[in-house]
């Protein structure tokens, strides 16, 4: 059955080309594959014998582009036609959304066509489907051969379900795309019939209907039932949702072209309106398992409500920094990847990998202020981190030392990742907001840096190079800002003492998520894969792999002060 992903806004349908052996199913796919424009092209997978007979199936993913805001993808499969491969045919037929029956038009192949058709019906029946509910298109292939039956004859034999049928010469491509178009239309129309009347993506949470389980198969087309009214829903444990509106956070779907950190989960939630915030905005930690339901009612910086057909609407993410040199570039914006390198911190709104919560501190550097799952991102924080009233770092650069324009502070992230989340063992007590060197009492903690890779670093403050240190035991020298030290006179030592985590003071408020069993556990024996030359731990690990470690002392995690940018900014004097 089709898979609908609202997060990536993708619909994926499975279409199976069925028919007797040598009727041209694989040829159909080959022609389609050949004609797909290069930029859309993916490889066609063919599990075939040495004589090019399909052994298991052929597979061709076909991206039809974005229609009405949903990226529509067809997965075209063929089955092996030979009678004795019925087991594999049945496997391929699993979860089918539409069938193309490719019949061989030659008169002497009629019996094979009929057998194959009966086999199709039977196999579908075993999955609980029938051709009454599964859209089917008939293709009478090989019309160029001399001994073909007439279309009417073939139709009288094969067209029991009043399916549309087309003549084709698959080897030359004639009729192939007409067939594809017809089946695509049928499948999508069936979808529409099934979901007619439910515009807008409203849903109720499952918890509101505890007695019900997964939906029963729905026969299509069905008459559209009444649309369920949006209901306010109580926050569920760990996954608070508010309001009936499902996608206020759609803003975060954005920037697919820059989607270096794109991950499915990476949808920065709109900021909570100030009026809804608790007196201490930092005390909302761990409360953001799913803030997507929050309506940015009063925040002018909030993303406007998404429009249908604009799946990548993302006004706030405009100034996304380039992908880090480590190369998280999402080559396919639809393929979410999570950054993987230590010390990148939580790449903000893209909700990437959590900083490793190893007790020694991630050698990767500044990436992990405690308890917020990534680089000072406060829960409920605006994904774009730039709202001045939220005390974003852009508003007080002289204190924050960020020096970067507010919009570069994007990627503010609710701690999407519970594993980077609250860590009770951290030595940081929750702090009053005024302890923040950003001086933003009453405001949100500043948005985190852009995934640890701001485009530019302002000159470090007088405190010296602002390389973060990971000495978390006493916090001495822990300056999690790679963007510059707080200026003297701002009481930085005091701040260090009082508020070792200027990014997310108090962000460690223990919320109801993650639950305790999901607390980060150290994995002392796992090294992250060497993904970047800039991560200190990577080179260490490479040394180990080369058997070189006898001559080099592997620095302890607490000694790793360069972190991610050690390579970039030279050795510490």
């Amino acid at each position, binding site marked *: *059955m089709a898979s*609908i*992903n*609202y*997060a990536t806004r993708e619909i994926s349908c*499975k279409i199976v080309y069925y028919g007797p052996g040598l009727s041209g199913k694989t040829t159909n796919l080959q022609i389609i594959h050949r*004609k797909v424009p290069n930029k859309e092209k*993916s*490889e066609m997978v063919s*599990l075939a014998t040495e004589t090019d007979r399909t052994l*298991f199936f052929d*597979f061709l*993913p076909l991206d*039809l*582009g974005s*229609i009405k805001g949903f990226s529509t993808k067809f*997965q075209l499969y063929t089955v092996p036609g030979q009678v004795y491969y019925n087991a594999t045919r049945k*496997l391929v037929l699993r*979860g089918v959304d539409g069938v193309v029956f490719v019949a061989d038009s030659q008169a002497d192949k009629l019996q094979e066509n009929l057998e194959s058709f009966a086999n199709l019906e039977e196999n579908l029946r075993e999955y609980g489907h029938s051709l009454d509910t599964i859209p089917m298109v008939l293709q009478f292939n090989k019309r160029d051969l001399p001994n073909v039956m007439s279309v009417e004859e073939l139709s009288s034999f094969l067209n029991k379900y009043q399916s549309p049928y*087309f*003549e*084709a010469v698959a080897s030359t*491509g004639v009729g*192939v*795309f007409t067939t594809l*178009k017809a089946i*695509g*239309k049928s*499948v*999508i129309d069936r979808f*529409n019939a099934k*979901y007619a009347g*439910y*515009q807008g*993506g409203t849903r*109720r949470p*499952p918890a509101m*209907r505890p007695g*019900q*389980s997964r*939906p029963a198969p*729905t026969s299509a087309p069905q008459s559209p039932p009444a649309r*369920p009214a949006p209901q306010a829903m109580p926050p569920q444990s760990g996954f608070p949702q508010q309001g009936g509106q499902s996608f206020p956070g759609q803003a975060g779907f954005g920037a697919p072209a820059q989607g270096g950190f794109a*991950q*499915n*989960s990476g949808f920065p939630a709109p900021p909570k309106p100030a009026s809804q915030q608790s007196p201490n905005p930092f005390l909302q930690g761990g409360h953001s*398992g799913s803030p*997507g339901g929050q309506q940015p009612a009063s925040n002018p910086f909030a993303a406007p409500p998404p429009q249908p*057909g604009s799946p990548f609407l993302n006004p706030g993410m405009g100034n996304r920094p380039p992908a880090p040199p480590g190369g998280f570039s999402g080559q*396919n914006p639809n*393929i*979410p*990847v*999570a950054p993987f390198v230590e010390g990148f911190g939580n790449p903000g709104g893209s909700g990437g*990998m*959590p900083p490793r919560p190893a007790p020694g501190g991630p050698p990767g550097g500044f990436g992990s202020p405690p308890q917020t799952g990534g680089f000072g991102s406060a829960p409920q924080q605006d994904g774009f981190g730039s709202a001045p009233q939220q005390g974003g770092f852009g508003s007080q650069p002289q204190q924050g030392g960020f020096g970067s324009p507010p919009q570069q502070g994007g990627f503010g992230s609710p701690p999407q990742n519970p*594993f980077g989340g609250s860590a009770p063992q951290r030595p940081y007590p929750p702090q009053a907001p005024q302890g923040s060197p950003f001086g933003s009492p009453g405001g949100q903690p500043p948005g985190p840096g852009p995934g640890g890779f701001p485009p530019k670093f302002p000159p470090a403050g007088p405190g010296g190079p602002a390389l973060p240190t990971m000495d978390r035991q006493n916090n001495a020298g822990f300056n999690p800002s790679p963007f510059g030290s707080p200026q003297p006179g701002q009481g930085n030592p005091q701040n260090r003492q009082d508020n070792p985590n200027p990014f997310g003071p108090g962000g460690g408020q223990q919320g109801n998520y993650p639950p305790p069993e999901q607390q980060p556990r150290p994995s002392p024996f*796992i*090294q992250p*894969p060497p993904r970047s030359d800039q991560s200190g731990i990577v080179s260490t690990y490479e040394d180990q792999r080369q058997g070189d470690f006898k001559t080099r002392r592997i620095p302890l995690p607490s000694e790793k002060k360069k972190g991610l940018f050690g390579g970039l900014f030279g050795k510490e004097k």
Partner: protein
Amino acid sequence: MGDFVLFKEDVERLNKILSHLITESASSYVLLINKDGNLIAQVGFNPRFDVTSLAALAAGTFASTKAIAALIGESEFSMMFHQGEKENIHISLVDEDVIMVLIFDDRTNLGLVKMVAGQAKVKLGEALQMVRENEMEDMMPDVTHGQQLADQIDSLFPDAPKPD
């Protein structure tokens, strides 16, 4: 079996678990697919492979080993492991319909991957159950319209041969 409908919060929930899994097991990529070959969720470092094809093929592999299992009197194998020279694939059943595919290399080891995957399975099962409780009636679509899609296909293949 209904359509597999994922909402944003579902994906977030799954990705959290998968992110944790991948960190803990030091794998490089993890896919969650269903037995139809549809990709449900994926997390990991920039893949150097076609994820969609991998999903389809892994589902196919799983289906074919199920047939093997039937031959020897098992209902299905819940875990498969393919060892390569550098990259390995661990395929395991999360619940009756969903398969998890973990890709890892020699930076970690199978035992660890199995252990962490086993832990993740429980949580994934819970999250997937919530996905299944998504009700069709609540789903939305401003799904596409068939004719639009047909037009899209036309524009995608402008030089396609037309029938006479």
